[in-house]
C-alpha cells in the first residue's frame, strides 16, 4: 500500500473542502442564517479524510452531531448539505433534518446523529448486512471520545466482534465531550486500549496526520473486507472551535489550544506536499480557489433555494 502523490492531493483537496465548508458555516451561523445547533469539524479534517479514502460508494458510514466532515469525505454534495443547514426545501433532508441529521443513504451515509453514540450499533447492522449479503463492503463508525463511554460503544463493539462484522470504529479523540476533558471522563489514556475487551485490534494514531489515519484505517478495512472482523482505530485530534457555534470554549487551556493549532493538519499536509514536490504552492492555491468556488456555489444554491412548503410537514413520516 503505497500512497501516491495524487492520492495525497486528493486528501488535501478534501480536507480543504471540509475546512472551508465549516468556516463558511461558522460565518453564516454568526450572520444568523443557520438555525439550530451547528457543531463544526475544524481541526479534525484529517480523520474523516484519511478514513473515508479507504471506502467506496457502496461502503457505509455512520456519523455524529459533528458530521459535516464525515459526509463531505464520503462524497456528500456541498449544495445539498449547505441547503440543509439553511433549512431549505432543496437540502439533503428537504429541510427536515438540519445539520445533525444529514444523510445520503445512496452514498452509504446513514446519517449524522444527534444522539451521542447512537451510530455505533447502527454501523454494526450495516456491516452485518454487508456480510449477510456477501457484498464485500464495510462500514465505518465515526464517534467521539465522549461517545466511547456510552453503553452503545460497548454493546456495538461486542456484537461486532462476536459476529465478525466488517466494521471499523473510528474514534475521534478530540479530548473533549463538550466541556469535559478526556482525563475527567475516562481513566484510560488511549481509547484504543478498549479494543482488548472485545478481542479485536486497537490502534491509536495521530489524528492530525492524514497519512497515519489513512494507513491505520486501511489495515482495518482490509481486515474487515477479508472477513477478519472489526477493529477500533483511535485518532487523536483537537477541535479548534467551541463545542457548538456560540460556545466560547473558555474551559480550554489556551496553551494547549495554541499547541494544537500549531499542529493543524492542513498546513502540515501542504508542507509535506511541497517538500516532496507533489505540488507547488501555486497548485495548492489553485485547489483552494477551486474549493472557494464550490463553497460559494453551495451558499448561492442554499440562499436561492425556497423554504419547504408547509404542506410538506406530514409527508414521509411513514413509507
Amino acid at each position, binding site marked *: 500500500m503505497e500512497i501516491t502523490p495524487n492520492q495525497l492531493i486528493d486528501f488535501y483537496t478534501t480536507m480543504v473542502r471540509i475546512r472551508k465548508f465549516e468556516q463558511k458555516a461558522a460565518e453564516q451561523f454568526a450572520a444568523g442564517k443557520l438555525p439550530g445547533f451547528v457543531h463544526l469539524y475544524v481541526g479534525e479534517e484529517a480523520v474523516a479524510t484519511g478514513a473515508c479514502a479507504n471506502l467506496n460508494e457502496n461502503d457505509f458510514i455512520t456519523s455524529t452531531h459533528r458530521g459535516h466532515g464525515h459526509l463531505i469525505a464520503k462524497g456528500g454534495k456541498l449544495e445539498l448539505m449547505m441547503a440543509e443547514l439553511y433549512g431549505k426545501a432543496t437540502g439533503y433532508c428537504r429541510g427536515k433534518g438540519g445539520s445533525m441529521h444529514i444523510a445520503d443513504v445512496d452514498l452509504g451515509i446513514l446519517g449524522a446523529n444527534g444522539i451521542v453514540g447512537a451510530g455505533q450499533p447502527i454501523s454494526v*447492522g450495516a456491516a452485518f448486512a454487508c456480510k449477510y449479503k456477501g457484498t464485500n463492503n464495510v462500514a465505518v463508525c465515526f464517534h467521539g471520545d465522549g461517545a466511547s463511554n456510552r453503553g452503545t460503544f460497548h454493546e456495538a463493539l461486542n456484537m461486532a466482534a462476536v459476529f465478525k462484522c466488517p466494521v471499523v470504529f473510528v474514534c475521534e479523540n478530540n479530548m473533549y465531550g463538550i466541556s469535559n476533558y478526556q482525563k475527567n471522563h475516562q481513566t484510560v489514556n488511549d481509547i484504543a486500549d478498549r479494543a482488548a475487551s472485545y478481542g479485536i485490534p486497537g490502534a491509536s494514531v495521530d489524528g492530525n496526520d492524514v497519512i497515519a489515519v489513512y494507513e491505520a484505517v486501511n489495515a482495518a478495512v482490509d481486515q474487515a473486507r477479508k472477513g477478519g472482523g472489526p477493529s477500533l482505530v483511535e485518532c487523536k485530534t483537537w477541535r479548534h472551535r467551541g463545542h457548538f457555534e456560540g460556545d466560547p470554549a473558555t474551559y480550554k487551556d489556551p496553551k494547549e489550544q495554541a499547541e494544537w493549532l500549531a499542529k493543524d493538519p492542513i498546513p502540515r499536509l501542504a508542507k509535506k506536499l511541497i517538500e516532496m514536490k507533489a505540488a507547488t504552492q501555486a497548485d495548492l492555491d489553485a485547489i483552494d480557489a477551486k474549493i472557494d468556488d464550490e463553497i460559494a456555489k453551495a451558499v448561492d444554491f442554499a440562499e436561492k433555494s425556497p423554504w419547504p412548503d408547509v404542506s410538506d410537514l406530514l409527508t414521509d413520516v411513514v413509507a
Partner: protein
Amino acid sequence: MTQMTYMEALRDGMRQAMLKDPNVYIAGEDVGAFGGCFGQTGSLFEEFGPKRVIDTPITETAIIGSAVGAASAGLRPIVEIMFIDFMGVCMDEILNQAAKMRYMFGGKAKLPIVIRTPCGAGISAAAQHSQSLEAWFAHIPGMKVVMPATPADAKGLLMSAVADDNPVLYIEHKILLGVKGEVPEGEHYVPIGKATVAREGSDVTIITWSAMVQKALAAAETLDKEGVSAEVLDLRTISPLDKEAILKSVEKTGRAIILHEATLTGGVGGEIAAIIADEGFDYLNAPIKRVAAPDCPIPFSPVLEQAWVPNEEKVIAAVKQVV
C-alpha cells in the same frame, strides 16, 4: 385452515416470511437452538440455520440498533426483545433512530424492522416481566404497533409487519401463546390499521385488544343473558388506530367502554376516549368508561396479581354503570 396455537401461528408467520424473502432474518436472545424464551422460534433455527436465526448476546441496545443499520442497508430484520419490560434499555434506538430516520432524512430511508416482544401479566412474573407498554410506542410518530388477540391474527399481522416498510412493534401476549384457533395456511396477511368486530352488539361497545378480547367476550356473554347486547371491537392495531371502526361502533351503540390491561393513567384508553369525546361526542348517551389495571407496578403474589389484572367482573360493572 389448520388448528394451531397463537405461538405456532406467529412462528408460521415468520417462517412464511423467511421462505418468501431471503433478506428476512431473526435475531434475539436465545432465539436459536433454544427456540425462544417461550418457544416462539421453535425449530426455525434448525430449518434456516445460524445465518438467518441468530442468537445475540444480552444486548438489546445493539439488537435494535443493529436492526436499524441492517434495515437501512436493505435487510428486513425480525428482532426479538424477550419481554416488553426490557424496552427501557433500547428506547433510544426505537424513538430516535428507527422511527425518525425516514422523516429526518427527508424520506430517503426505509426501515422495514419488526420488533417482536411479549407483554402481559398472568404468570406471576412480577413488576419487571409483566407490563403492557404499548402506550409509549403509540406516542412515537413513525412507529406502528400491532397486538393480535387470536392465532389467525398472530400470523396475519406478523406477515403484514414483515411486509411493511416501516418499523412495526409486534406485541404478543404471553397468556395467549398457548391459545388455539383456526389459522389460514401459507401466506396470510391481516391489514395493519384495521380493527375487527369480535362480537356484534347494539347497547354498548367494548373497545379492546390483545388478551383482553377474551375477557370482553366473556363479559358480553354474561351481559347477554341479562339482556344487554355488547359489541366487542378488537382493535388489533394500536397505531395507527382504526378511528373509523371505533366511531362507527359507538355511533351504533351510543356507549363506549375501553378495556386494556395496561395501567390506567396514560394508557391507550385515554387516546381512544379522547377521539370518541371529540369526534363521536354526538353519539354518546353515557360517560365513557375505562377498565384498566390500577396505577401500580404489577405485584408478584398470585392473589395480588389477580386483583391487578382487569377481569370480566370489572367490565360488567363498568357496562352496568352506563346502560
